[in-house]
């Protein structure tokens, strides 16, 4: 007779079940780090970041060199071109080579990082260092680096979005200044559009399709400063009057410029965003939404036309908000698995709060400085193209995306919906927005469960 376990199960089966249970639960708990390290002892930190362009990597290396000079006992091994997806997967997988200090090019995932505990809460470190975060960082930037009271990231430079425009094309079309309202914007876009003899486009005044480079709907929608969630955290896009206005303006612009199909077909002729075949660089776009960093790239590429920068236009009924723009930024934090959290904090603190470092880094890669002191620094680059973005970043009407428990999932849902709207596949906008709200709420509930 086979021997049985305490519940009458055969011993081999019981052993198999116990092993399976241990394996299942064991895999579910990746190792955690520690904040008991002595930051004055020699240590090597791993720093993962997303910068990949030559000038950017040089700037990061210079920043690390400055840090290592100040803290000679801490060595930093930097790894660039790391995506959020890689960071997310690596920190969940664990392992001895996981990073100590991590950064993300987007603020979209901060809610996820904070709520999951994947990036550790920095408030205790700030307190221990005697730093008052509200005195150091602008409010908007602090908002996008925390989630429900957990400050798991700090701003590491910011990105402001505005308009790049072709000054030669403006002169040729007889337009004296960049448009400030959506009506002016549409008129200018139509006026700047040029066609070939066979009727296809040579240049469009503005490419309104959401899939172009940085044109994602959340960035354009920022000109209306919508409220995405209500007090209970429920999606409220169907209750947001600006949503109807925004989609209406975009569809109107598409129609005025020739329709979604022809524009989308023209878009497929554009080269890669980060290459010399960028459509603004090749003269296929007269006005273009982009981030502050583009000014350096354009200066390097030396296009065959003169260009300038300006804030994006605002809704006709809110002219007083002109100057606003979409704000996001790089954020930095400490990985939950780091066993050298105190040393890691020294690096995060240096990169995000040291005024000289922040100014030098901002000038090097044309990102907006992320501290109040750095924003006021006389050492900031005086390039007028860059100054436009500094001004957008400091505009009180500028907005960023609210953090969510599932990161940028609601932004992805909005993008999907916006793609359908621009293609004319959403016949009833109100009904579509209500369905979008339901989807966002279901996704949020599923992630927060």
């Amino acid at each position, binding site marked *: 007779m086979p021997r049985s376990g305490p519940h009458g199960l055969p011993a081999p089966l019981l052993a198999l079940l116990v092993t399976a249970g241990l394996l299942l639960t064991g895999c579910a708990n990746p190792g955690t780090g520690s904040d008991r390290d002595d930051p004055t002892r020699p240590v090597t930190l791993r720093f993962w970041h997303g910068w990949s362009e030559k000038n950017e990597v040089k700037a990061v290396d210079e920043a690390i060199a400055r840090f290592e000079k100040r803290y000679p006992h801490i060595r930093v091994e930097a790894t660039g071109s790391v995506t959020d997806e890689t960071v997310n*997967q690596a920190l969940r997988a664990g392992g001895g080579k996981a990073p100590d200090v991590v950064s993300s090019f987007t603020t979209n995932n901060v809610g996820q990082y904070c709520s999951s505990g994947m990036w550790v809460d920095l408030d205790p470190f700030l307190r221990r260092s005697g730093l008052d975060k509200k005195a150091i960082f602008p409010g908007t930037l602090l908002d996008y680096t925390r989630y429900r009271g957990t400050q798991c990231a700090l701003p590491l430079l910011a990105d402001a979005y505005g308009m790049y425009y072709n000054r030669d094309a403006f002169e040729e079309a007889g337009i004296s200044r960049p448009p400030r309202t959506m009506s002016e914007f549409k008129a200018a876009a139509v006026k700047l559009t040029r066609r070939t003899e066979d009727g296809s486009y040579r240049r469009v005044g503005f490419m309104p399709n959401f899939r172009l480079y940085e044109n994602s709907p959340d960035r354009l929608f920022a000109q209306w400063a919508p409220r995405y969630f209500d007090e209970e955290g429920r999606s409220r896009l169907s209750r947001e009057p600006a949503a109807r206005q925004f989609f209406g303006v975009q569809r109107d612009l598409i129609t005025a410029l020739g329709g979604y199909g022809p524009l989308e*077909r023209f878009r*497929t002729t554009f080269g890669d965003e980060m290459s010399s075949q960028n459509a603004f660089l090749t003269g296929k776009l007269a006005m273009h939404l982009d981030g502050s960093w583009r000014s350096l790239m354009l200066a390097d590429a030396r296009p065959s036309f003169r260009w300038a920068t300006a804030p994006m236009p605002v809704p006709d009924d809110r002219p007083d908000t002109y100057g606003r723009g979409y704000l996001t930024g790089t954020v930095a934090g400490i990985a939950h698995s780091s066993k050298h959290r105190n040393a890691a904090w020294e690096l995060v603190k240096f990169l995000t709060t040291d005024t000289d470092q922040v100014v030098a880094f901002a000038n090097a890669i044309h990102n907006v400085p992320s501290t109040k002191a750095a924003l006021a620094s006389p050492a900031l680059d005086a390039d007028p193209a860059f100054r436009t973005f500094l001004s957008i970043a400091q505009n009180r009407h500028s907005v960023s995306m609210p953090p969510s428990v599932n990161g940028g999932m609601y932004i992805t849902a909005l993008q*999907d919906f916006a793609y359908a709207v621009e293609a004319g596949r959403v016949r009833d906008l109100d009904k579509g927005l209500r369905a979008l709200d339901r989807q966002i709420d279901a996704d949020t509930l599923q*992630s927060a469960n």
Partner: protein
Amino acid sequence: MAPLPAAPELRRRHLRERLRTLGFLSPWLVGFTVFFGYPLLATVYFSFMHYNQIQAPTFVGLRNWTYVLRQMPLFGPALWNTLWLVVVTVTLRVAFGLGIGLLVTKVKTGAGFFRTAFYLPYLAPPVAATVAFVFLLNPGTGPVNEILSAVGVPAPNWWGDPAWAKPSLVLLSLWGVGDLMVIFMAALLDVPKEQYEAAELDGAGRLATFRYVTWPAITPIVMFAVVTGVVQTMQYYTQALVAGKLASGVSIGPGSVVQPGYPDHSTLTVPQLVYSLGFQNFNTGAACALSLVLFALAMTVTSLLMRRRAGLLTAED
């Protein structure tokens, strides 16, 4: 006659035989347990848990299943696309592979060249082949549309139009049909020549010869091609993801994630959705529930195909 062994001796002998059998089976048993049994068990377990791969899992009952089957709007399009690709791609690939196999077995001169030419595309890495097809079928600058326009044929927006995106993927899979061609070629060359001679003597035409001689001989191979094709297409991921990403033209910066399914979710397949849920949104429970749906679907379709009455096999096969 030797005396029968005593009962304990008999039991020991049976035990030794069983252990020997198990010993020979053990490499497979270990592999099956580690790479199939445990992952399947874990998938079932996590489908009832909330688990973000950081915090400890918590039991949520049927919440993940409700979310996947009733609240996730992309489940419907992904399932439809997967089934569409299974039906259309497998049917066309088998028909095309068989057709090419028939052609290359009939060719008298240059057979080696044609067999190599048809097989070579299969050797191209899937990503490279997809990138090439996206370039060839680019609606704005691709050579295919330039040729079509030059001869007055309306040029489709291959990768940009939801109605054309899946057929474009089918074209890509037909281009790489070399694997099936080789299998069918071997099966066709294996049909006894005597049967063809007998059919010829009986005055059978080409169609009748194919229907009554070739087809019965190759049906087990056709069955194999269909079943493996169904299982492979249920796992369709790389080509659809690469084509969708490239054709969308959306820049994927270090802070972004690839949104599969361009255009309008028409190339979104269930495996892409599983990856997206599990490793982009870290919604492990829902990803596991969706994986089990796919597993059940693949098992059902394969079982239906394998049933003798419903499939192509006879009892003798």
